[in-house]
């Protein structure tokens, strides 16, 4: 039987939420599995991560190394290749770090690689069946993976619900098996995102625009609507890529995490990277020309319409509403 390992991302001595999600993913793969957590880092922060993992994992492999104070994917890969047994199934979160680590790790382990999975079926022989998404979430696909020489599987954050676990795992120190490490890519520093003039994380209502806004000049109609509603304008990635709005307005895993009461997704298809930035279960109103846009699966209210016509109509309504309110008062 292939042993199952979970790569643990952590920061400031605390394991990422994915640590618990990977246990759930491992159990789907094999209900009787006892996955091994691998935590890599340095010093007391690593110790407290390992200690916290004992509650979910029966076994925690700790790898402390002077070169690993910062998780450089090239060095992490070298360490993993040294300690992992042949045929291992390695679960990695599909995050900014996972993207850096997983593809190359699969090559060095001579293992198959399945990226960004949302579901796993129980293992049957050497063949694993998984579900992933393509075309920005418009379609899902079943894929099979031959695990006879092992597999690296990156798991979409949030796709697996953590289940209660009552392990009292043991920590196994694997540091001595790793030895010295050297990288051809060297971490220099982290530059924290600038705040921007409008703080979209502080608004109860966001008028959020995506690719459907089509051109820079049309951003003004979203600004008008936001003003009429007392809201702020936020956006999805394509709008920032096109330089139509500042990075500080972007909602998503690479942008801001927001918690509005109501989120208007206008011309936003609803990729998982975008939805990852929406927390606190907001009421979502989505408008999109494409009736099959994934956003309609997660929205509360959906409207198939051209936002370039819908937005001005709603702005007009909001202005009338404001006038009526003023008259009543």
């Amino acid at each position, binding site marked *: 039987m292939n042993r199952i390992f979970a790569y643990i991302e952590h920061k400031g001595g605390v394991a990422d939420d994915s640590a618990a999600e990977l246990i759930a993913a491992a159990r789907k793969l094999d209900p009787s599995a006892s996955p091994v957590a691998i935590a890599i880092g340095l010093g007391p922060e690593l110790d407290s991560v390992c200690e916290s993992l004992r509650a979910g994992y029966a076994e925690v492999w700790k790898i402390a190394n002077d070169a690993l104070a910062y998780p450089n994917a090239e060095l992490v890969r070298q360490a993993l290749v040294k300690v992992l047994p042949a045929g291992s199934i390695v679960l990695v979160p599909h995050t900014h770090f996972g993207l850096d680590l997983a*593809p*190359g790790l699969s090559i060095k382990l001579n293992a198959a690689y399945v990226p960004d999975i949302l579901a796993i079926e129980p293992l049957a022989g050497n063949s694993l069946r998984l579900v992933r998404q393509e075309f920005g979430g418009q*379609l899902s696909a079943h894929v099979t993976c031959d695990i006879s020489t092992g597999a690296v599987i990156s798991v979409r954050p949030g796709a697996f619900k953590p289940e209660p676990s009552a392990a009292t795992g043991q920590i196994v120190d694997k540091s001595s098996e790793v030895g010295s490490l050297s990288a051809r890519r060297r971490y220099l520093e982290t*530059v924290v995102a600038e705040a921007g003039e409008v703080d979209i994380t502080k608004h109860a209502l966001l008028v959020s625009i995506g690719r459907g806004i089509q051109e820079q000049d049309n951003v003004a109609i979203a600004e008008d609507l936001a003003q009429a509603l007392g809201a702020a304008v936020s956006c999805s990635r394509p709008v920032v890529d*096109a*330089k139509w709005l500042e990075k500080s307005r972007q909602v998503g895993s690479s942008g801001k995490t927001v918690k509005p009461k109501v989120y208007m997704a206008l011309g936003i298809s609803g990729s998982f990277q975008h939805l990852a930035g929406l927390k606190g279960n907001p009421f979502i109103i989505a408008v999109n020309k494409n009736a099959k846009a994934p956003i309609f699966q997660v929205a509360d209210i959906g409207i198939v319409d051209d936002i370039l016509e819908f937005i001005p109509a709603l702005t007009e309504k909001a202005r009338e509403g404001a006038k009526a309110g003023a008259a009543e008062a």
Partner: protein
Amino acid sequence: MNILVCVRRVPDTSENEIQLNSAGNDIERDDLVYSINEWDNYAVEEALQITARVGGEVTVVTVGDEEDEEVLRREMAMGAKQGVMLTDEVFTGSDAKGIATILKGYVDKNKFDLILTGVQAEDGGAQVGGMLAALLDYPFASLVNAIEVRDAGKLKITREIAGGNKEISEIDLPCVLSIQTGINEPRYVGMRGIRQVASVEIPQFGASELGVDKGAVGEAAARVRRLDYFIPALGKGAEMLTGERDQIVERVFDLLKERGGVQA
């Protein structure tokens, strides 16, 4: 600096509704509009900007067949010096590792200081760049959104990480970088530009010219295979409002008030 950019032709999700075919085993490909994978286009633009600053040439390469030539020509019209087609019957059905193996064959026969890919493809999972780097034993960085050329065979690179933060590193050449959208503003390509490169010869290389082991690529070697496509059912689904726009707008405005989005 000589730069290789690996590109792909993909169904354009901004131009098409991607739909399931009647058999459920593929997308409906009739009348589909294809284009250069968006991430790859940013990678080509970045390569052109680097060579404009420090000299060198840009080569674009793809694994495919005659239909895929149009994306090579498009990127040549942007300014890439050469387009290269890696094509062979035995390549059909390759998984990501197979594609990376084919690309490695081309890199081994040539000399590049820097290799760029897009972060991912519309129907992919951000695999080939990292795999190619590992096969070549080059250093790798994903999600790169700024590149600065330093002296003595090094780059200073910025990676996009969570929360809009940036991770800055130094990386030795040769290396492979996967390029994130938004790193630059890709230049416009007009019909005139494409006509100018229409007759430029695009060399083709197959498995034997590339020294690629036929057993390591293609469908038989693929350890990961797609079985089918299906329509995902993730959430409960939205309540869809239909009818006249005026009435919908009215309802939406009421909902905004009810749900606390608008103070009224």
